[in-house]
């Protein structure tokens, strides 16, 4: 009889599939190189566990998670969205933890021949600056506060946010309402001076901002992990913003409610392990508290 043989064969295949554990991760785009490497290293050590990662902007992933996106772990580019998940009861209590500090860089196309530094932004050839959209992207907010700190943007007391806007702290700015573009709220005169034109272009997420800087604007305020790798590293050079010079990007992860399975916890422990931290640092993240 051949039939039992076939049944045994398929049962074996299915059994393997069932036996293989899967960890599903939703992660901010600035993690795309670092997390890829971490996953490879983790899978090598934990045969039978497969890690699947979806990248996107933290805001989009948050919105999708609240609508039932299947994921076990959420690595946000800031602390806000994991907090919101927790507040909505969608996170496993007590699992929210900062895993890194995001760092902003000014990336410049090497062909411009400019010395890396914010002074370069005053060059008349810099007519467009790519940033992530500060309305929803943490890196965009960090970029704006960085420019503000160095006096390249000045808050307008006559803008749509009213007279009290200049006195707000970075955390108090109602970022999600800044839909009229940076120029409506900040005076860009220091960046505009002596140029035929100047304006921001807004990426849907930090990776999109990086792509625009690479392909079109020649300059962008980006995430350090992105400019250390691949074509951005080849085509340009960067200046790293000092710690504390912008709105902190307290990158935080959280396990989603009811998902603290052994393999998920294993992956979480690996991220926290010395090896995991070394990897994160190698890819351009500062560790919490550094």
């Amino acid at each position, binding site marked *: 009889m051949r039939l039992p043989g076939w049944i045994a064969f398929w049962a074996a295949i299915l059994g393997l599939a069932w036996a293989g554990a899967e960890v599903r991760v939703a992660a901010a785009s600035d993690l795309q190189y670092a997390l890829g490497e971490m996953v490879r290293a983790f899978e090598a050590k934990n045969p039978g566990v497969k890690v699947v990662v979806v990248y996107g902007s933290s805001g989009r992933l948050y919105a999708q998670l609240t609508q039932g996106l299947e994921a076990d772990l959420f690595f946000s580019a800031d602390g806000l969205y994991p907090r919101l998940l927790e507040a909505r009861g969608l996170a496993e209590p007590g699992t929210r933890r900062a895993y890194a500090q995001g760092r902003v860089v000014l990336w410049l196309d090497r062909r411009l021949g400019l010395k890396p530094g914010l002074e370069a932004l005053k060059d008349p050839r810099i007519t*467009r600056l790519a940033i992530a959209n500060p309305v929803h992207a943490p890196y965009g907010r960090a970029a704006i506060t960085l420019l503000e700190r160095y006096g390249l943007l000045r808050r307008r007391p006559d803008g749509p946010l009213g007279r009290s806007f200049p006195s707000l702290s970075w955390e108090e700015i109602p970022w999600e309402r800044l839909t009229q573009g940076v120029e409506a709220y900040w005076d860009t005169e220091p960046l505009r001076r002596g140029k035929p034109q100047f304006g921001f272009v807004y990426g849907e997420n930090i990776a999109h901002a990086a792509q*625009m800087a690479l392909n079109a604007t020649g300059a962008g305020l980006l995430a350090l992990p992105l400019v250390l790798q691949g074509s951005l590293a080849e085509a340009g050079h960067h200046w790293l913003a000092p710690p504390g010079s912008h709105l902190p990007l307290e990158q935080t992860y959280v396990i989603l409610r009811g998902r603290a399975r052994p393999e998920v916890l294993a992956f979480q422990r690996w991220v926290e392990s010395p090896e995991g931290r070394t990897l994160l640092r190698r890819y351009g993240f500062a560790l919490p508290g550094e």
Partner: protein
Amino acid sequence: MPEPQFWTALRLSLEVASLASSFLLLLGIPLAWSLAFHRFPGKPLVEAVLLLPLVLPPTVLGFYLLLFLGPEGPWQRITGLTWAFRFEGLVLASVLFSLPFTLTAYREAFLALDPNLLEVARTLGVPRWRVWRHVILPLVWPGLLSGTLLAFAHTLGEFGVVLMVGGSIPGKTQMVSIYLYDLVQALRFAEAARAAFVLLLVSLAILVAVRLLERRWRAWRSTTG
């Protein structure tokens, strides 16, 4: 009522969509006509190339359009203009990416014409423009209209291409679809819902207006003369 920024974005979208549809009419009619009736060497290749935007995902198409329009792209080299992140670039991108839909609709409309009518019109010694005005356009305009409307709606709702080419600059290149998306990203769901509702109403009003116009035109055609 949605916030003022919504109306700015909506107006921008309507402007881009109207301009793109107008250019598509101007460009699409002769192009679709020659695809429908003329033989020329390499025609299958031309047809395939014109349909290519259908194959590419909008963000990918937008990426290549950005390279095309960017500071060192071919468009800059040919015309001296940098249209990336500009209104003009959005219009050009919308034209290119709606071209396949529009051309297909126009060509079908032309192919539905009875060729005998055109031949007889020629033998009647009438100048070409009168044949177009009195025979071709009156018979094909519903097809042209629906093709153009398709392009208009398509442009109004397009996201991927304009995201890549436009750079989401409020008041300049942030079209209503992107504005809505940004609201959702910023977790302002109530505002997003209001804006989406108004957008739906506006689109519905446009579509109904066109249908009414079409019906009135038909009624008028069948009672006069």
